[in-house]
Structures are given as structure tokens and as C-alpha cells.
């Protein structure tokens, strides 16, 4: 994967100074690796934000871009359901006051079930892949399945079945079921990517991975890089 996409490594190396790959760059990496990502832009000015929102149409989501803010929701750095230019300008102004402001990520608003797809390079066991119910409450619900990479199709299905809330994915109470095939494929592609990046990363959160009847979309992601001696990190 990274052989055919040298840009993936370039983006990672560019993020070394920050110690982690910010959302927009992380989404570029996932997009290059074949994952679906929402349409988005990083706007430096309110005008840029308005122009992009005009192109993709409201409602949109706005998120703070800052190398100093790892958990955006914790500082009020995520606003969803923005319906017009006026509201977008307000949000832009508020984000400008947050620590380390570099811009505002504006993206299309999608719906689906929020999952977390993550990776951690374990000292004893190497790359581990995590699937769980996602969103801001992941560490409260702790409804997750964990496996050592590489992930086989059987492993991926067992991970999905292993979630306490897996019935929510089957179309609970009239909702359209999540595309199992897409989800399984997404988990396996992720596992391959993680194994290739093993020496460069510490952990990855794709949270949420937004899953619906048609697709699984990486709507937010961060990649924490391995600390390499001699490199300045956070």
C-alpha cells in the first residue's frame, strides 16, 4: 500500500514535528490507502469556509485544526449541523480563540452508526487492531473487540460479533443494517496499512468510522507517531 503511495510516508514525515498527524492529513493518508472520507477542506479564513460550504451545500461540520488539541470535543472544537453562512462565521470566530489555531476543517455532514477503528503497536504483541462502538463515549462504554494483526476475514467477523452492541449494526428497530462486507473489508485494509506503518506509529484512532447501509467513512482520525530519539515531539 505505501509502496504504491509514497505520499503516505511524506505526510507522516511532515507531521514529525507535531508528534502526531492531524485530522486533515490523516484523512489524506486514509484516502490514499483506499478508505472513504467525507468531502472536506481546511479553511484559513471565514471566506474560504463559506466558499467551500457553498460548493458542497449546508449543513456542514466545522472542527478546529490545532496541533495542540488532541481531543477536539473536549475543548468545544467540534460543531455539527451548521446550516448557514452566519452560523459558520460565528463558529469560525470562536475557534480562532482556541489554543494553537491553524484553521477550520469544514466538511459535509454524514449519518450512520459511529464506530471506532483503532490500532496500537504493543511492545509484546506488535500491531493490535481495535473495533468498538465509537463517538465521544468510547472510554465510558468500553464496548470493544481487540485482535492481533493481521486480521483475517474470520477475525473481522468475530470482532463485529464480539461487540455487545452488535445488534445495532443489524438494523435495530427499523434502521437500515450496516454493510457487513464493507465493514469487514475496511477492518482488513486498515490492518494491512497498520502493519506497513508499524515502525513509524504508536497508535491510531479512526473515531468515528461512520457506517451505514452503503459505506464506511473515516469522519475523524488521528495518528500518533512513534517518538524517535533526536526528534522533537509534543
Amino acid at each position: 500500500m505505501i509502496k504504491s503511495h509514497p505520499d503516505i510516508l511524506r505526510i507522516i514525515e511532515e507531521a514529525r514535528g507535531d508528534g502526531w498527524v492531524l485530522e486533515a492529513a490523516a484523512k489524506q493518508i486514509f484516502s490514499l490507502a483506499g478508505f472513504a472520507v467525507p468531502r472536506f477542506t481546511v479553511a484559513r479564513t471565514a471566506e474560504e469556509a463559506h466558499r467551500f460550504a457553498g460548493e458542497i451545500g449546508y449543513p456542514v461540520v466545522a472542527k478546529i485544526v490545532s496541533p495542540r488539541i488532541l481531543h477536539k470535543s473536549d475543548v468545544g472544537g467540534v460543531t455539527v449541523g451548521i446550516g448557514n453562512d452566519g452560523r459558520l462565521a460565528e463558529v469560525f470566530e470562536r475557534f480562532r480563540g482556541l489554543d494553537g489555531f491553524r484553521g477550520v476543517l469544514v466538511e459535509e455532514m454524514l449519518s450512520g452508526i459511529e464506530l471506532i477503528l483503532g490500532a496500537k503497536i504493543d511492545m509484546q504483541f506488535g500491531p493490535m487492531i481495535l473495533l468498538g462502538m465509537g463517538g465521544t463515549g468510547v472510554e465510558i462504554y468500553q464496548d470493544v473487540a481487540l485482535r492481533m494483526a493481521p486480521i483475517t476475514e474470520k477475525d473481522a467477523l468475530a470482532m463485529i460479533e464480539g461487540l455487545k452492541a452488535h445488534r445495532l449494526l443489524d438494523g435495530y428497530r427499523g434502521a437500515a443494517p450496516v454493510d457487513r462486507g464493507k465493514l469487514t473489508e475496511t477492518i482488513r485494509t486498515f490492518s494491512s496499512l497498520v502493519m506497513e506503518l508499524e515502525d513509524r506509529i504508536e497508535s491510531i484512532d479512526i473515531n468515528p468510522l461512520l457506517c451505514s447501509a452503503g459505506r464506511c467513512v473515516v469522519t475523524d482520525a488521528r495518528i500518533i507517531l512513534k517518538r524517535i530519539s533526536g526528534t522533537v515531539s509534543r
Partner: protein
Amino acid sequence: MDLKPLFEPRTMAVFGVSSSNYRHPANEIFTKNLLRYPVKVYGVNPRGGTVNGQAIHRSISEIPEPIDLAVIAVRADFVPDVLSECIRAKARSATVISGGFAEAGRRDLQERIVAIAQEASFPFVGPNCLGIYVPSHVDTFFLPGERMVKPTVGNVSFVSQSGGILVDHLIKFAGEGVGLAKAISIGNKALLGELDLLDYLAQDPATRVIAFYIEGFGPNEGRVFVQNAGKCGKPVIVLKSGKSAGGSRAVSSHTASLAGDYASFSAALSQYGIVEAANELEMISFCESLSVYIKPIQGRVGIVTVSGGHGAIAIDACTAHGIAVPALPEDIREALRKELSPSVRDIASLVNPIDLTGSGIDDDFVATAETLFAMEEIECVLALLLPYVPGITADLGAKLSSVATRCGKPLIAYVPHVEKYAMLIEGFELNGAPVSPSIEGAVLMVEALRRNRP
């Protein structure tokens, strides 16, 4: 590296024996092997003298024959020289009992002995360990023979990072009738670790179950361990400690927080069909069960007892582990009812658990076991026996085991473990059916068969 001389030595040299201090660990090792094991044992100490009427050799080069196993119990500072001496004398293996290495801040000394051994492809266990115990072959534990409780000879091998945990498990094995093949205390595991012993024991014909007590692995070692254990063809059971360690590190992602050291350890084990024991009760129960039965089950049991309470507690334990207790269909119940003795027939509850009541006799148990084993939905029978009930005889263990053997399905029993009921218990165990001293333990024995995926 050939590990066979460690486990099947014909000759042994014990370094550090003292002619004046009979309590020296080396003396204990020397004496027990001299008096009680078939291995030919020589004492070595540069000061010479005698021990137990035997001359102490001043160096390994004075010993008239080649040495298979050197047991080194000298001060840590002297170990590198002794090791080199052994290699020069063409000894084939060693266990380094001495402490005072990495565990005491002397990583340098530990690295030195590893380098010496690696250069010569010379296998050693330790340092800072008890070494090796193979029943009726060899015993490098420095514990006086009369203080040790020894299990019967069997097919479970146990590898432990901690000597104390190992010896404790031997005591429990003895109490529960779990037979031992080999016990290995690997201490600081400077050279030989879990991976090497897993490889050796996987090939060892005397070993059918491999149990480990593990505190932690080196970098990426856990990955190789689970992959190798998963395909070794024998049940591997792991008891892990240090589950809460590492929580203090700052964690920057949700995944790193949710997939902590222990969560990853546990997930990797179960992914590869390795049975993780949460505690000692599970460890002993899993060892006992898997030493007898290897074939995995899905987890559907039939329960027979003479007490409604025992049945109810067993159902709760089964449910907690995800083990099913399928109800008997009407026609099978009616057929079984006709087989039961007249005083039981009208009062027994035959749904599953089957409660034969306090009037139940041996023949009722045998008829019930035959019915349960014949059912396709039932993979395993759990017999909860209360030997104080008047109709149960001491022969029931042997009788039920023979039904199980004939039907080719696992039978697991619960019998309170007191001296008075020993013959009943032996009736099961000597005929290949494991017995637990608790209902929970018996259910764990079923659970072991469900979790093991060789």
C-alpha cells in the same frame, strides 16, 4: 540448541557444594540427586573436601566423565567463570540457580553469561531460578525433599517465571490428582525463555498439556509465542500476573487507552486458542481437565445430581461461562423415568439438571449418564456427587467412568475432597475422569474444553 540434557541428564555436576555448610543450596541439590535419582551426580568446589562421604571435585575437569547438566549455585560474580569452565569441559547444559543478576541491578553480569553461552551454543536455564524437576529423573530445586509435595507422574508440564508459584502449583497438582511431566522455573530467563520451552515441550512425548505462569514478554516475544502456541497441537494454558501494571503511562489515543498491556495480552491469547487462566483455581481446573480430554466441545452439558441446590448453582456457573444446559425432550425423559429405581422414579426431576433426589442410588446415576451420553445435544456430563447420601457407594466413580469411556464423551465430577471419600474420587480419576473439589471448579473443567482450540 539441544535442551534434552537439561531434562534427561545421565550425569550432573553441582557447583558450590560445601564441606562445612550442609544447608548450602548446592548441598541440598547434590544430596537429593545422589540419594533419590538415577542421575550420576558430582560435587564441585575449588576448596575440595567431602560431602555425604563423597569427594568434592576441585574443578569440572577432574570429573572422570562428560557432564550432561551443570547445576550452578555459586556467588553471582563467579558464575561467568564457572560457565566458561563448563563449556571448556564440554558439558552439555546448565541451570544457573544463583541470584544477583538483572533482578539485583547487575544486568551487566547477566549479559556476560548470555554472551558466553551464546558464543558456544550452550543452553542454560536461569539465573535466579529453581531450575528443573522431572519426576524420577532429576531435581535441581534446592528445597529439601521432605518439604516438597510431589504430584504423581503425569502429562502436564509447567513453566514458571516464579519458582514459588511453580512449587505451589505442584502442591495443588498433588492435592487435585493432576499428574506432572516436567516443571521448569526459568527465573530471569536470560537465555532460555518461554519460546524455547514451548518448542521443546511441544515435541516432548511425555507432555500433553503445557502450562505457563508469565509475568511479561520481551519486545514482540508475545506475538511469536501466541503464534507458535496456537499451532503447537497441544493445549497451552497461561496464568498472567501484572495485569494492572503500566496504567500510569500517559495515553494520547482512545485505542492506546482501551488496548492496554493486559487487554492486548488477553486478546492475543484467545485469538490463537490459548487458554488463559484468570487465577489459580482456573489454572488447576484447566490443567486437570485438558490433561484428560483434548477434543474441544461447543459447550452443551448434561448435569446429574441428588441435590436441587447443586444443580441450581451449577446452572448459574454454566450460564456465567456461556455453557448451555439443554432441556431433555419429553420422550427421553419418559424413557429414562422407566429405567430409574421405584423409589426415585416418581420424585426425580428429569429436565436437566437431573435431580435424582436423596433416594438416588448408583444404578440411577448409571442409567441417567447413559441417557445423557446417548443424546446428540449433550457433549459432556457433569456429575455432582454427594457421597453422604445413603444410596451412593464408593464404587460409583469407577462405574460412571466406565460409562463415559464406553460412550466416548467427557465426564467431569464434583466430589467434596476429604479423606473419607478418597476411594470414590480415585474411582473417577484412575479411570480417566477429572474430579473437582468445588462446583465452580467442575464447571471450569468444562469451560477448559470449550476454550481450548488445538
